[in-house]
């Protein structure tokens, strides 16, 4: 009898233990169903700032809320909520990645956790641990095992492969056009504004008045300023040949130093080093409207025969050209700041639009190597036009015939990641 009672007590205890344990600890330790196949890994193609968590998405997930808890491996701290989202909100297909770098689809979840959000001091190599919990109606229904991983910096951003291919393609075309440049001549359409440069300089020589040349309000690291300096080189060479006077007021001191060398070199090339004055280039102000006010004052007082505005301009464009026009100067402008083009059109004699600014240096120098590269610009435009036309038609057709994969692939290729 005693043995039977003991066995009864033992079995009762065995069945009651989970309930008792819950009552004692105040929370459940019942093993929840496991979220299987969950993995934590270094986020590919990044600079080491994120960890990627992936696990399969189930069709029955509707109404489920996922919570991701994280902590550093070494810390004794509590788990910290790192992310929370509703089912199907963060499936792998929603990750902004192109098809050649990411093959995961809507059948799994993919969540990026920034390592700094887990621990402010975390860095590349710090091991972080994660726990994924699933809730339905506020109650836990599943949990993953503890997943640990560390982030690493990667050496190639694969999603940007399309951009790299394009750079390689342009570079190859660049060298190809250059190698062909020496073999045969090239037809270049006339650019009236550039042909008028001779006329403007000749006029200045006859009138005995100076020429003003502005390189715009951008710094030396801007391509438009470099293009402007190329034109300045050619213009000042002609000025030296005609024995006229050029004045180059500057907005940026670095550009001024470079322009000094450019003008000096042009005078040497023209065989007139003695005519060169170091004060042809001078600094005015790095403040947009102070620059405009100073230059306006000089134009108003000296009444130059010609004004060149080549480079990047903003609201000061009309302030400069209106004063130049009222002073009776021939004005030639070139800018890639398209919002200012209307102002230059209305108040200048000749305006070079956008890309013509980049072509002008080559056009004036007549150097075969530089001229040949203009061809590349035209090829580039042709490529863009065909891409827009064919791409537009292809996407429209694919939409009609429901070829979603094809549309995504095509759009991926032309997207900047």
């Amino acid at each position, binding site marked *: 009898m005693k043995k039977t009672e003991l066995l009864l007590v033992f079995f009762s205890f065995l069945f009651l233990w989970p309930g008792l344990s819950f009552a004692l600890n105040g929370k459940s330790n019942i093993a929840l169903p496991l979220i299987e196949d969950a993995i934590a890994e270094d986020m590919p193609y990044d*600079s*080491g700032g994120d960890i990627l968590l992936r696990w399969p998405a189930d069709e029955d997930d509707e109404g489920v809320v996922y919570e991701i808890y994280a902590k550093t491996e070494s810390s004794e701290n509590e788990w910290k909520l790192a992310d929370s989202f509703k089912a199907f909100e963060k499936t792998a297909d929603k990750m902004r990645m192109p098809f050649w770098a990411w093959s995961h689809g809507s059948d799994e979840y993919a969540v990026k956790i920034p390592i700094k959000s887990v621990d402010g001091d975390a860095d*590349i190599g710090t091991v972080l641990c994660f726990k994924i919990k699933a809730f339905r109606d506020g109650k836990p229904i599943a949990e993953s095992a503890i997943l640990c991983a560390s982030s690493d*910096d*990667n*050496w*190639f*951003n694969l999603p*940007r492969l399309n*951009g*790299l291919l394009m750079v390689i393609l*342009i570079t190859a075309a*660049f060298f190809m056009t250059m190698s062909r440049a020496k073999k045969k001549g090239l037809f270049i359409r006339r650019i009236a504004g550039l042909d008028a440069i001779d006329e403007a300089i000749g006029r200045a020589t006859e009138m005995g008045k100076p020429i003003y040349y502005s390189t715009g309000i951008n710094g030396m*690291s801007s*391509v*438009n300023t*470099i293009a402007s300096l*190329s034109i300045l*080189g*050619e213009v000042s060479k002609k000025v030296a040949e005609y024995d006229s006077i050029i004045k180059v007021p500057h907005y*940026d*001191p*670095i550009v*001024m*130093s*470079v322009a000094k*060398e*450019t003008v*000096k070199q042009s005078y040497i090339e023209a065989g007139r080093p003695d005519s060169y004055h170091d*004060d042809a*280039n*001078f*600094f*005015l*102000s*790095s*403040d947009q*409207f*102070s620059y*405009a006010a100073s230059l306006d*004052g000089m134009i108003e007082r000296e009444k130059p025969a010609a004004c060149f505005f080549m480079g990047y301009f903003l*609201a000061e464009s*009309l*302030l400069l050209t*209106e004063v130049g026009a009222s002073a009776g100067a021939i004005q030639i402008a070139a800018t*890639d700041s*398209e919002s200012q083009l209307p*102002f230059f059109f*209305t108040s200048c004699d000749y305006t070079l*639009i*956008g890309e013509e600014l*980049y072509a002008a*240096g080559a056009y004036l120098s007549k150097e075969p190597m*530089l001229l040949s*590269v203009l061809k*590349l*610009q035209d090829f*580039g*435009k042709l490529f*863009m036009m065909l891409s827009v036309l064919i791409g537009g038609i292809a996407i429209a057709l694919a939409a009609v015939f429901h070829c979603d994969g094809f549309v995504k692939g095509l759009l991926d290729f032309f997207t900047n990641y």
Partner: protein
Amino acid sequence: MLIIKKYIPLAIVTIVGLLTLATYYVPAKASSAYLSTLNQWEVIVSGFAFLLGLISLLMTHYKKIAKRVDGWGYSLFVFIGFFAVVIPGIISHGAQAKDGVLTSLGWAFRYLYNPLAATMFAVLAFYIVSTAFRSFRIKSVQAFVLFIAAFILILGNVPAGQMLWDAMLGWTGICGIGDIIQWIMQVPSVAAKRGIMIGITIGAAVTSLKIIFGIERQYMGRD
């Protein structure tokens, strides 16, 4: 001499140009460290360049005063303006306000620089109006189309124009002037701008290659 004046600068341009281009494709820490260093160098160089600009500015105007060239009196104002801002700047350690009270620099900024700069920008409005009067002449079909678009845009951009449109054409219920403006701005205007922008981008990309590979070296004196 040719090595110092030509080959070394060209090698620097090519190497730094290619490395900087590569940073866009290499996310590794070394890449961002390189970019960081380069940026810091640029800040340092531009700091020194400011000094260079200042010397150039003061020397140019000093020469004008010394030689008594035409308009040398204006050059005096450069010095007056310069000292009127720099001296208060040094006294107030560059701060424009202290404990809510304007310093002498703050005063110079608010009551000298503010009105002067505002005047320059305000002049633009006058120039735009006079240019519009002189240049907006309908001499071709294209100019007429441009005129219609501009007319609607100007009219629709002011409440008075909107009220006028509603009073005259509102009863038709076809569309508001705002819808027409939105269409003009988002379809023909953006289409034209995109065309120009694509041309500019291609031009800039090709020019960048010319610079990186040393084909375009006019800016450093060709040979």
